[in-house]
């Protein structure tokens, strides 16, 4: 027996903490604040939560994080898990929430992530923690970091498809233009392609402004069965499809430096939703580095393979373009809070589909895509959400 998950569940509450430099708040506290705000937004009491999904933060990690967090909040779920798929975690959590609800395991799932890597760790501690994602015997001894992995993928894309550094830079410029319209974003002063190219080289061809921020913050969502969705104070946003793809953990073991498992997660999500890329009103895709956005847009089918560079030019991924991308400003300009990072792409999608985007609202947004990526182009999850009208 299979369960059709299309339209089966809805997000009925979202919570976002402040983001940026928050020296007075720990990661557990941020996780709790995001959860509290999401429950208020959903009009729910903590006793209503019977499913809980968290992810382990960089700061204040716990071996059984979700157990610790339920203890901290004094909620006693019957479905409780800590997920760890890096930047894809939040979206894999939504798929597991939908699966648990539709198989009768639980009814109301709270997904909450919080972390404070910006304030909670020194630079040296951050460097040390980051290297734990590398293979301890076959990557770590060379002194390479995550950025050089993404940089080698960027260079391979330039070589294979003629992509330029200006095209990578355009992604950062567009993200900043969106952040300028979002009062919650961390970096709001517009930048130019020249600014990106003139910023310090971190690992060539990637400059500092090709890299995402490093921030404190947390965000949460509440998921329930679609049939209950009308009973909540805010406009529900429905789950239409989700797909995952997992090819490697360490980049040197990947099947390709220029094509990712987004080429599998995307089609799986579109098939479940019964939709195509051209049906999407916007896309919030993982932008830890600018080159990743180009690759994801190609692999998800928004443009032919290899044409991501020209696709992002001339404001095409900004409001008013053919596909607004990361309307909140993304990891590049809104915030990058570590594993909770893609949660803000998710809460932003809900905000857009509720029509609450204010100055950055995508006109008549009915369907949107969110894509998360963890590791170094490693884990991929694609989620398609829509309004009642899209069901």
């Amino acid at each position, binding site marked *: 027996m299979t369960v059709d998950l299309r339209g089966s569940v809805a997000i009925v509450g979202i919570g976002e903490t402040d983001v940026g430099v928050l020296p007075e708040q720990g990661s557990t506290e941020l996780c709790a604040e995001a959860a509290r705000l999401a429950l208020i937004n959903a009009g729910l009491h903590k006793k209503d939560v019977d499913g809980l999904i968290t992810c382990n933060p960089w700061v204040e990690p716990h071996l059984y994080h979700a157990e610790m967090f339920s203890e901290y909040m004094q909620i006693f779920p019957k479905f409780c898990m800590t997920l760890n798929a890096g930047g894809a975690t939040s979206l894999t959590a939504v798929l597991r929430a939908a699966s648990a609800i539709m198989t009768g395991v639980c009814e109301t799932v709270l997904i909450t992530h919080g972390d404070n890597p910006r304030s909670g760790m020194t630079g040296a501690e951050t*460097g040390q923690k980051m290297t734990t994602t*590398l293979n301890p015997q076959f990557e770590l001894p060379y002194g*390479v970091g995550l*950025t050089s992995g993404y940089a080698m993928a960027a260079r391979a894309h330039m070589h294979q498809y003629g992509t330029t550094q200006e095209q990578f830079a355009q992604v950062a410029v567009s993200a900043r233009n969106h952040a300028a319209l979002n009062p919650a974003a961390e970096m709001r002063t517009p930048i130019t392609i020249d600014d990106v190219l003139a910023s310090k080289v971190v690992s060539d061809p990637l400059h500092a402004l090709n890299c995402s921020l490093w921030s404190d913050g947390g965000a949460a969502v509440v998921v329930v069965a679609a049939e209950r969705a009308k009973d909540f104070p805010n406009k529900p946003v429905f789950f239409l499809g989700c797909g995952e793809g997992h090819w490697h953990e360490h980049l040197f073991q990947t099947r390709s430096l220029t094509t990712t498992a987004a080429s599998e997660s995307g089609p799986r999500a579109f098939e479940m939703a019964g939709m195509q890329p051209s049906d999407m009103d916007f896309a919030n895709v993982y932008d830890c580095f600018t080159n990743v956005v180009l690759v994801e847009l190609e692999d998800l089918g928004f443009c032919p393979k290899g044409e991501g560079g020209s696709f992002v030019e001339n404001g095409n991924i900004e409001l008013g373009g053919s596909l607004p991308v990361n309307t909140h400003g993304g990891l590049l300009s809104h915030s990058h809070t570590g594993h909770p990072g893609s949660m803000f792409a998710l809460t932003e999608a809900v905000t857009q589909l509720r029509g609450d985007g204010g100055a950055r609202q995508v006109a008549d947004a009915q369907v949107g895509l969110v894509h998360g990526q963890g590791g170094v182009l490693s884990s991929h999850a694609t989620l398609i959400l829509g309004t009642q009208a899209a069901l």
Partner: protein
Amino acid sequence: MSSKPMVKPVPKPTPETRPFWDGCAVGELRLQHCNSCQHVQYPPRKLCSGCFSQEVEWRVASGRGKVLSWSMVTAPSAPGFHEEVPFLSVMIRLDEGPVMLSVLRNCAGDAVDFDMPVKVIFEQRTEEITIPYFEPA
């Protein structure tokens, strides 16, 4: 910041990787060959990741390969490498098939190119551990 120098990471061999590190210590790059499906694999495993056969055999590799991609690292995030930058992080397709991450020595940043032939060299890190690096062939 403390002035204590950061120590470069040293691989800790496991039972399945020890023959690889033993090879490096005597100047041999060793790879596993599957006697069932002829798959060549890296990093080492107790089973063949191609067919799950346990008939995997260690052989000395050519130590030669070609550059798949590279990046000149100017801001290392790993501890212990701040005196070594800039250095060339490289992805290498070995002639036997597997891909290795390594660092390219004895090569200027503007001299490296796609498909450039490279060969292995070895640098001793501790008494027990020697690390495979590469240089232009």
